[in-house]
């Protein structure tokens, strides 16, 4: 079934032909994913293929690397997109042998593949040639087996003899014997690491020579938990727990979008508006916390700004509680819509939302007085934690991190979903590439979210009563067709949050892979902080705004 022989096939659309012409000699087979054309290539041609796609066809965003094990082979899938146009996607499928799964690493082409491939090795077991540092990333070094592989024994004891573990008392010969660098472990118990993150830092005096994030302390294997749940109901509570800092609805939307597109479910317009409103409320809450904790890192413990940010977040959470029933783990979306209409009496609810939205400009004024116009903070954040645009693209950074480096990339506008393309709002982009720009981007996004919410409320108020359809008619058990795969992304609070699902005809997914924005963003930390001082590294970490639930899943 290979189309290698004919380079001109009139029935295929021109875009695909161009790609096929480009990759003519490398394609072994084609596959059909719901979201993009997929090309199967040989495992030793990965760098060549990706290099051509990146340099000649312009696919500069490696969004996700999925790894899965089939009964007869292993497969890595590279999902490529363009920063300029995220709807233009292509997937590269790399099958490898079942006995000895080795394929070429994509790291020389896309830096972001570094961690993604380490995770694939860790959880599934595929090895990558040419990878600079292939070790386990999420699980401990001494873990036996690969959990997402098909023949993993859960009851196998994980106790290993002592000699397998790294010796903590051994002298550290990381650097040369004569250098005077000091090795410090920052975290996992630390007031500033935003969760359980372990940074292995090598210091030269007060300057950071090398920092290596060690993640996996919050790894719950959410992907496998989703693979054990039915599409219709059981998976939906889990996305709340990825980015758990009140961005639950945004995470749920990622899953809802992927599953709905997979099973061809149409969401009624009324539900889309409610979804948009809820998602933007979540975004405000998440950004408030991000700004608050960033201030905490720079101002010290008793700062008033953190408290004010939490107070504003409380107001958003109160509204979300009225709407969904919970303040943090919403479980509000369902496939096909949302679970509840707006709370009765509707006028009261609209009143509350409008009061909240009207208070936001004053609150932001206050933050500008306290934070952004403060000279000391400007001294601390302007010009520190620099992430140049090209480096950010290479690392697959998205969200406020990318927009703070001048990359104009927002899935809500470029690959629209929900009701975003019918509303009037802007995407804030800053050129500074430093901590200060990221802070400004977040604060401006809060303003924009307030605008969106206001428009949604106006629409919802005038919606005719008999057309208030909150959920499409979805069968109780959802069984998408066998062997269909889809990858969809949404703009989560921290960046591009994506879900890849492969269905096999049952009511549970065969493979569920999560593209976590914080995972790719965190990889940029060494770029931002090598050569800087410790306080700058802490500030950079704060401005990345990572949530370990999402990094580790």
């Amino acid at each position, binding site marked *: 079934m290979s189309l290698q022989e004919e380079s001109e096939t009139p029935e295929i659309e021109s875009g695909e032909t161009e790609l096929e012409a480009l990759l003519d000699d490398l394609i072994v087979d084609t596959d059909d994913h719901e979201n993009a054309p997929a090309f199967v290539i040989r495992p030793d041609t990965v760098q060549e293929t990706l290099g051509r796609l990146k340099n000649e066809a312009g696919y500069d965003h490696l969004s996700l690397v999925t790894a899965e094990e089939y009964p007869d082979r292993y497969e890595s899938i590279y999902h490529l997109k363009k920063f300029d146009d995220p709807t233009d996607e292509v997937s590269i499928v790399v099958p490898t042998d079942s006995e000895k799964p080795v394929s070429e690493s994509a790291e020389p082409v896309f830096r972001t593949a570094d961690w993604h491939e380490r995770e694939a090795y860790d959880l599934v077991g595929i090895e990558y040639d040419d990878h600079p540092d292939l070790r386990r990333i999420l699980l401990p070094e001494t873990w036996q087996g690969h959990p997402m592989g098909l023949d993993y024994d859960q009851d196998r004891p994980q106790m290993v003899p002592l000699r397998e573990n790294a010796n903590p008392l051994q002298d550290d010969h990381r650097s040369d014997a004569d250098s005077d660098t*000091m090795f*410090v472990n920052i975290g996992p118990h630390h007031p*500033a690491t935003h969760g359980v993150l372990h940074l292995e830092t090598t210091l030269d005096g*007060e300057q950071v020579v090398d920092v290596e994030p060690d993640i996996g302390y919050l790894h719950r294997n959410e992907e496998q938990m989703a693979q054990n749940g039915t599409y219709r109901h059981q998976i939906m509570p889990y996305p709340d727990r990825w980015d758990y800092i009140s961005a639950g609805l945004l995470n749920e939307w990622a899953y809802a979008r992927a599953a709905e597109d997979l099973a061809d479910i149409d969401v009624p317009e009324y539900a889309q508006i409610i979804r948009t409103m809820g998602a933007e409320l979540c975004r405000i809450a998440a950004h408030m916390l991000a700004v608050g904790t960033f201030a905490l890192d720079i*101002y010290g*413990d008793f700062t*008033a700004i953190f408290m004010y940010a939490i107070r504003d977040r409380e107001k958003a959470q109160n509204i979300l509680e009225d709407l969904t029933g919970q303040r943090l783990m919403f479980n509000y979306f369902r496939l096909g819509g949302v679970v509840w209409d707006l709370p009765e009496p509707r006028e009261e609810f609209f009143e509350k939302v409008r009061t909240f939205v009207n208070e936001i400009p004053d609150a932001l004024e206050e933050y500008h007085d306290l934070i952004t116009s403060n000279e000391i903070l400007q001294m601390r954040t302007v010009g520190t934690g620099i992430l140049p645009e090209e480096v950010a693209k290479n690392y697959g950074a998205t969200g406020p991190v990318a927009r703070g480096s001048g990359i104009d990339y927002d899935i809500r506008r470029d690959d629209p979903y929900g009701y975003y393309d019918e509303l009037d709002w802007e995407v804030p982009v800053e050129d500074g590439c430093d901590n200060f720009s990221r802070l400004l981007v977040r604060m401006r996004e809060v303003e924009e979210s307030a605008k969106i919410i206001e428009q949604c409320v106006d629409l919802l108020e005038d919606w005719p009563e008999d057309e208030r359809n909150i959920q499409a008619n979805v069968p109780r058990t959802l069984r998408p067709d066998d062997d269909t795969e889809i990858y969809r992304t949404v703009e989560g609070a921290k960046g591009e949050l994506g879900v890849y699902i492969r269905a096999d005809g049952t009511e549970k997914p065969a493979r569920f892979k999560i593209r976590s924005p914080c995972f790719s963003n965190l990889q940029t930390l060494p770029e931002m902080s090598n050569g800087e001082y*410790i*306080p700058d590294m*802490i500030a950079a970490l704060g401005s990345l705004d990572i949530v370990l639930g999402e990094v580790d899943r």
Partner: protein
Amino acid sequence: MILQTESPLPDVLADLLGLSGFGVAGEFVAALIAAFIVGNVMLAMTGVAGPWAKRKITAKFTDRIAADRIGPAGIGTIPADALRLLSKELIVPEGADRPAWDIAPLIVAGSAMLGFAVIPMGSGIQLADPEVGLAYVFAVASIASLGMVMAGYASNNKYSMLGALRAVAQNLAYEIPLVVTGVSVVLFTGSLRMSEIVAAQQETLISVGGIAIPSWFAIVNPFAFVLFLAANIAEVGRNPFDIPEAPTEIVAGFQTEYSSVYFVLLYLGEFLHIFLGGAITAVLFLGGAAGPGPESIGFLWFVVKIWAFFLLTQWLRSAAPRLRIDQLIEIGWKGMLELSFLNLVLTAVIVGVVA
């Protein structure tokens, strides 16, 4: 040449208790009793400031209610907190350099207490009044940096060492502007003796509509006042200069390995230093214990002034970010040093012109 010392409070006590008849021994005992009283008063104030006042003040800034359960308005938090802190287990880290590690908190707290010995607190309370009072106070207060370095280095912990290095760099950088600005006050008074500095500020500067504004040096030379405040806050190690104990970066800096009694000593020692800084500022720039009303309630005004300084540090804690260590050192050596020398020259010119 012996430092000429008058000892107002011990003399008063000796007379009261009839110890003057015993010669030097009697004076010594009276001095001990006086020191005991002053020390306790200061510690009591720190005790109120640490567990209770700090929490209430930061709560006010952040729209919260804090510490209002135990006792009226939460005052009972103080004995509760004291009991809690003292009942904790004293964990000695492995490899800590023992005598140094134990002595360091004592040095930090003790140096502040020593400083209180020469401060005129009004109402006749002053432990000793040597001729070199001001120099003594600065010298003694800076012994605390030695304590911090000892604490940091002896803890056998990289975070503590980082904190200690930062602390010593900061203290060195800001000590000189502090002393030089203080010396500019001496140019006005012509004497290092604390009581004379206070006395020199009693004259009326100008009379505005019937209210006599005294010639406090803060009003005479506000530039020096602001400089001195900044240098003082940097010496004490409070926002925006609190990088030696930046909790979000190096956990607790040099205090990381201390628990129970030692932690209490370090914690209260920090507050004692704040109060000492406030006391020095009050004496040098705010007229000591001067205030409207009879002289016998001067002590109240003194307390008001040092609490005002404490409030200022808490206010800054809520609102000012901290500077990075290299920026801080830069400001110290390149900014404050020049400004303080400039201030000195200016003051000399003013004194020469006016006098």
